[in-house]
């Protein structure tokens, strides 16, 4: 019987009556619950999929996770077309309207403040990838390294071994320095056009499924009237670094997942 109990799945909160997405097979059509001047966009979901025990099982099923993560995103994207949203994390669930309303009451000041701060802003993401082999080939044209190369050809086997080691070390150092320079300079330029910016953890190749290494994973909160210069700057950076082996992935607008700054998530260093 617990299995069948319906739960409320919370997508996002807005400050005005939201336009809800239509024409898709949601569990149950998203609707909103109005309370204290806030609007919670929710769906009723079955306990057979979302109660604690069953959710744990489903989270082990990547196909299930993908499908529901995309639904979560699509509902919020539909709402944010017409209203500023505070997006919640995947699988934020409540037992009843009463517990949801109690949460809204408890967090009303924070939610309203956040909505006000995010008004007129968009979140964009920039990830920079680097083709390391290409960058190293280019850096190997450095004068000092070429000199060592010349030495290797005429050296004894023992000496050649040491020179190769030295070359490798120099090349590693140069690569690190270049990546820091490019990544930091790009981030700084973009940050200057934004209200807020943050750097997230790099994702490994197993996840990105790219052959290049991710060297920057950043999120930006941008005022709507600064989007154009922001995108133009991304394009300029792309063009400038094309021959360095750098690729820029710019996506947006996203719901402001990175900029809600809830107390639990602001104990950041930096």
């Amino acid at each position, binding site marked *: 019987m617990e299995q069948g109990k319906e739960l409320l799945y919370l997508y996002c909160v807005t400050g005005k009556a939201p336009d809800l997405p239509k024409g898709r097979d949601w569990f149950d059509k998203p609707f909103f619950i109005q309370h204290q001047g806030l609007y919670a966009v929710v769906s009723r979901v079955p306990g057979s999929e979302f109660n604690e025990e069953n959710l744990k099982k489903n989270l082990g099923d990547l196909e299930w996770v*993908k499908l529901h993560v995309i639904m979560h995103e699509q509902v919020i994207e539909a709402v944010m077309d017409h209203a500023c949203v505070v997006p919640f994390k995947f699988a*934020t669930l409540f037992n009843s309207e009463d517990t949801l309303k109690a949460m809204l009451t408890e967090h009303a000041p924070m939610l309203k403040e956040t909505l006000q701060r995010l008004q007129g802003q968009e979140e964009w993401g920039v990830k920079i990838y680097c083709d390391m082999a290409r960058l190293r080939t280019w850096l190997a044209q450095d004068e000092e390294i070429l000199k060592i190369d010349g030495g290797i050809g005429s050296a004894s086997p023992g000496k050649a071994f040491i020179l190769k080691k030295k070359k490798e070390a120099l090349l590693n150092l140069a690569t690190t320095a270049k990546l820091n320079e490019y990544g930091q300079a790009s981030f700084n330029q973009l940050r200057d056009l934004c209200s807020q910016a943050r750097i997230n953890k790099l994702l490994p190749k197993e996840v990105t499924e790219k052959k290049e290494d991710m060297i920057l994973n950043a999120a930006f909160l941008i005022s709507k009237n600064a989007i154009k210069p922001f995108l133009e700057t991304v394009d300029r950076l792309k063009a400038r670094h094309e021959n360095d082996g750098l690729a820029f992935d710019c996506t947006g607008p996203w719901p402001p997942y990175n900029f809600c700054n809830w107390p639990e998530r602001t104990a950041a260093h930096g």
Partner: protein
Amino acid sequence: MASHNVIAESKDVALVEVLDRVLDKGVVISGDLVISVAEVDLVYVGLKALISSVETMERLRGGPFVGPMQEPT
């Protein structure tokens, strides 16, 4: 301004972009009101298979860039 939404418009946005946000970011509330979602974090960590490769990258590079950072997850 419905025109350029990420999922709605561009099918080629990598799933990883969506997962990176929906599973890892967004408002988290804790307490009796909300049903436990601790497992969601575990899914994400598993998905990232993160630990070794990223830390290695950051060591190689001499540390992360200077800027506001997310808290470690």
